[in-house]
């Protein structure tokens, strides 16, 4: 029987080899954008301008950017609470401000974060609980792993409709103990559905460490039980995530069915911003220091210098890496990143709050 490690893509021909220098620049820019979104929101929250809980994606940006980067416009995704940047990074290669791209605009995402009527769900559920059939993003609930069955259904129907899109579902390692996680991947495996299950393994499910969640040295080995490939990616290295996810995407697109891609990463802060102080106590300081040390922006810059795509001097510019949210400033980010997000924030602050009566609307569709 093939082992998990044998299914890793070969070093000689990797999906990244087909990327252009411009693609590398764009990937780095997206890492900055994801990081800036997070630190800006942490600051806005501290100023008291945001409602609800912020689930920081700080230090996990490479999983989001690397997973989405190679998708086609017509592919679907199912992000969860720690993947807020995924909503506006989907199909972002088609142009961040391109209104035709199959993803959400920064105005829509900020409209949601600020609870405004410009949110795609008119701010009826909070934060990451948005989606859009137009953008091909599945709407999640708080019941984690709960959208994997829907993801399987989406691509089953797409195949019947003559399409060949794939779907990426994002999941923390904590949600892998849920029954629907098993039920949905089993169903997808039986029907060889193009469902790629990304595990953002950040070692902590809220306040519980991985060794109390499952009993495997590498979670990816769970895939063996479904007879599907299980790949492992360095979740801090956006290029490695890209390679492994694209290997799974190509496998799925060719009709061979689902894969699990375990991205090993580390949660920089608490489960949510309400948990930051407690997380500093329940997580050993040494583990936190080590986990935060491998910053995805720094790793990408080093890779680009090594590949001759960036000078060492340029790599020193925009030094957002290895800084906590309170230590980093707007000047540490590329100007276009700050400008793009500022447009979103400005638009959200100007947008109206939905009227109170909307609370009782849309329980049923009335055009029966």
């Amino acid at each position, binding site marked *: 029987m093939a082992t998990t490690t044998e299914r890793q893509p070969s070093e000689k021909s990797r999906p990244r080899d087909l990327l252009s220098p411009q693609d590398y620049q764009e990937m780095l820019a997206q890492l900055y954008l994801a990081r800036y979104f997070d630190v800006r929101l942490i600051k806005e929250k501290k100023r008291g301008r945001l409602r609800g809980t912020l689930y920081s994606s700080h230090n996990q940006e490479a999983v989001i950017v690397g997973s989405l980067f190679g998708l086609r416009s017509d592919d679907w995704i199912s992000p969860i609470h720690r993947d807020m940047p995924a909503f506006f990074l989907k199909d972002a290669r088609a142009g961040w401000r391109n209104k035709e791209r199959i993803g959400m605009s920064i105005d829509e995402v900020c409209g949601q974060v600020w609870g405004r009527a410009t949110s*795609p*769900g*008119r701010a*009826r*559920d909070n934060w990451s*609980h948005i*989606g*859009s*059939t137009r953008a091909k993003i*599945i*709407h999640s*609930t*708080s*019941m984690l792993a*709960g*959208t*994997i*069955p*829907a*993801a*399987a*259904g*989406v*691509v*089953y*129907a*797409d195949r*019947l*409709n003559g399409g060949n899109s794939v779907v990426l579902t994002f999941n923390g390692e904590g949600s892998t103990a849920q*029954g*629907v996680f098993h*039920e*949905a991947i*089993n*169903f997808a495996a*039986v029907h060889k559905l193009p469902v790629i299950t990304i595990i953002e393994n950040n070692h902590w499910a809220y306040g519980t460490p991985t060794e109390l969640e499952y009993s495997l040295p590498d979670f990816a080995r769970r895939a063996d039980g479904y007879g599907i490939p299980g790949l492992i990616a360095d979740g801090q290295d956006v290029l490695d995530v890209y390679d492994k996810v694209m290997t799974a995407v190509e496998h799925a697109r060719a009709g061979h069915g689902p894969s699990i891609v375990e991205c090993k990463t580390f949660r920089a802060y608490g489960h949510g911003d309400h948990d930051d102080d407690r997380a500093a106590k329940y997580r050993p300081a040494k583990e936190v220091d080590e986990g935060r040390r491998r910053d995805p922006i720094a790793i990408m810059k080093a890779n680009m210098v090594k590949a001759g795509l960036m000078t060492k001097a340029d790599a020193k510019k925009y030094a957002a890496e290895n800084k906590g949210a309170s230590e980093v400033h707007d000047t540490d980010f590329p100007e276009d990143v700050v400008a793009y997000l500022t447009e979103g924030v400005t638009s959200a602050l100007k947008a109206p709050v939905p009227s109170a009566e*909307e609370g009782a*609307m*849309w*329980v*049923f*569709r009335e*055009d*029966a």
Partner: protein
Amino acid sequence: MASLMQTDATIKKNYLTALKEAIAEEMDRNQHMICMGEDIGLLGGAFGVTDGLQEKFGTERVIDMPISEACIVGAACGMALNGKTVMVEMQFIDFISCGFDQIVNMTATYHYRTAGEVAVPMVIRGPAGAYGGGALYHSQMNEAWFCNSPGLKVVCPSTPRDAKGLMIAALRDPNPVIFYEIKELYRKREIEEELESGDEAIVPLGKASISRAGEDVTLVSYGQTVWQCLEAAENLSKEGYSAEVIDIRTLVPLDQETIINSLKRTNRLVVVNEAPMTCGFAGEIMARISQEAFEYLDAPPMRVTRMDTPVPWVKPLELHVLPSADKITEAALRVCKF
């Protein structure tokens, strides 16, 4: 296979055949309809409601699913995102609990949380009800769980014509519908009737029917206990009381008007449901009537329900905890003599 689609209106047919015809006709009419469930294809369903369906419509549209109720419901939601209408069979309605989160949190709220962007046309149907020795896990009427979850319609027919007509209406409704089929009625000869097809067969959701007209007391129910109410009405006529029997047919949305119009004449109410008493749907009807039509009541309304127990296996125990025509008659007499 032709027999699946041909409906001869001059032949009396049973409740199960009615459902089978409704599903097959809709599969034929709506190319975007999918059926999912356990053993529904190759086997044709545990009770045979989907018998012949896979042969006619293929394995892609009639899917034999792994034993994973939550996945079945969730996958149906995903199919709805890509334009499909899905019929989901629960092998027994008792097993719906395994898919509970996907029904109440994922499916029921989809339209609401997307501000109307997404509608989920899905019918979750399955055999329900007691009196057959099915014991705790093959006898339930758990409709109250779903009536208490905004975003779901809830249906329970008592006759073959209603079974077919409501099923067609449910499969054409843009909202998720939980459809309770009474398995004790599936092959009951005495209730067979002639059936229409397609549009002519439709029974709209949210409309009650008057199963028997009367003047002295109104008996309100749905599903299997409608037949007990009709038997009780016979008993009551021997005692000199004329009972009206209303079959609400749809719990959500509820046709309150038909009940209130009846009470304007009878001024007396007994509500019957097969489910346990506490927080059961009979209590909901009584609460609404107390609030909206108190002035028409000449006696306190009564309800006849299952005791607040599970459904036990052996017959004497089972019958002891469940409603019966005698129990309904007794309650109606108390209301009439108040």
